[in-house]
């Protein structure tokens, strides 16, 4: 029984971690200030 509880705790922790990380996601950032090029850039 204790083994089952320990396994359940491990599973629940893994689920919680993955759900939390995916729910937070990545910030969208902001639109770049740089223009669309109308000249040939000298370098990348």
């Amino acid at each position, binding site marked *: 029984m*204790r083994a089952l509880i*320990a396994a359940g705790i491990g599973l629940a922790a893994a689920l919680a971690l993955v759900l939390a990380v995916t729910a937070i*996601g990545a910030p969208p950032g902001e639109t770049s200030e740089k223009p669309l*090029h*109308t*000249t040939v*850039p000298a370098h*990348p």
Partner: protein
Amino acid sequence: MRRRASLVLLAFAVFFAALSPLIRWYAFPRLAKIPPSQYQDMVLEAKNATLLDYATMKSKKVPKVSIVQTLKGNVAAAEKIKDRTGRDVVVWDTLSYVADDKGKMVSQIPERYVFDAHSQEPVHAGGEHVDGDPVRRQGIEYKWPFLTEKRDYAYFDFQTRTSGPIHYKGTRTVRGIETYYFEQTIPWTKVKVPKKLPLGATPETVEQIGLERWYTTKRMFWVEPVTGAPVDGQEIHKEEMRWKDQPGKKPLTAFAGHVKMRPDFQDATVDLVSSQRQLVLMMTSYLPWGFLALGGLLLAASLVLEARAPKGRGELRARPRRPRGPRRRTESPPHETRGLLGLFVRRVGSADAGSSGHGCLGYRPRSSARTPR
């Protein structure tokens, strides 16, 4: 103490073993996406190309034609579409700017490309266009999906405003990176004249002269399959201005050349793709397999600890103190062991006697437990 440690190890074993598929099949598809704020530029060049001189309306050879492609993620537009559709989308405002060897504009075509940030499938949420003309894209453009497959894809051609298959032709190595090689051929097709041309020429003036624009290309991409990003791209591109209603009159070559990535931009792309590749591999391979192995090791360690743990201690600690008096030897009915090994092993016929009331230090060998005082 060993039994408690084995249970802790078991919890960690399950934690890491469960993380393995969760990262690969739950987290990765949700976390791997094109950032909506991405900005990227690329310069392609065609050496010894042919261009139409709009001043003389004659074709001429030039040492170099440059094609500058800029992709700029429009975050505000992406968030508006996300609010409306609930989908993670990327809105790219792009410009393909063609310049001659002196840097003067030959043509420029803007586009808006709206697509799913995870799958790169087009999203028809309004606003898609090529050179101001509304379009409804099918298939991919500029980038392949993460974990690109060895198969043909539908690829959108912005000159014809149509999609066609781009064929998988095998693997190739580009600068030490294994890539999937794709090829698409667009046959001679009548296409629209760009709205911005040199010397103030417009599609209307070109039409008034009695010309129409035709185009063909062989498009080649070498795609790094983990990220789906092309690390090399080339086109054998031809454009003609053909005389309307005069099939016998020789067409004017508007552009002809073999377009290739400029080496410095290709180097930068390879560097970027190499670093992004490691991030994707982390989610699809390194972490899932690493955590699975770690889970297995922890489970093994847990089982070893459990096997070495003193047997019967659980019962000893759990039982109330036996009142003093004459001791009797009794046999307990068969029952399962407690703890981790109880999941796998059945223990039969242990002695019920021997409680010494010593708590956690109360373990005594069964032989001593049976020894009358």
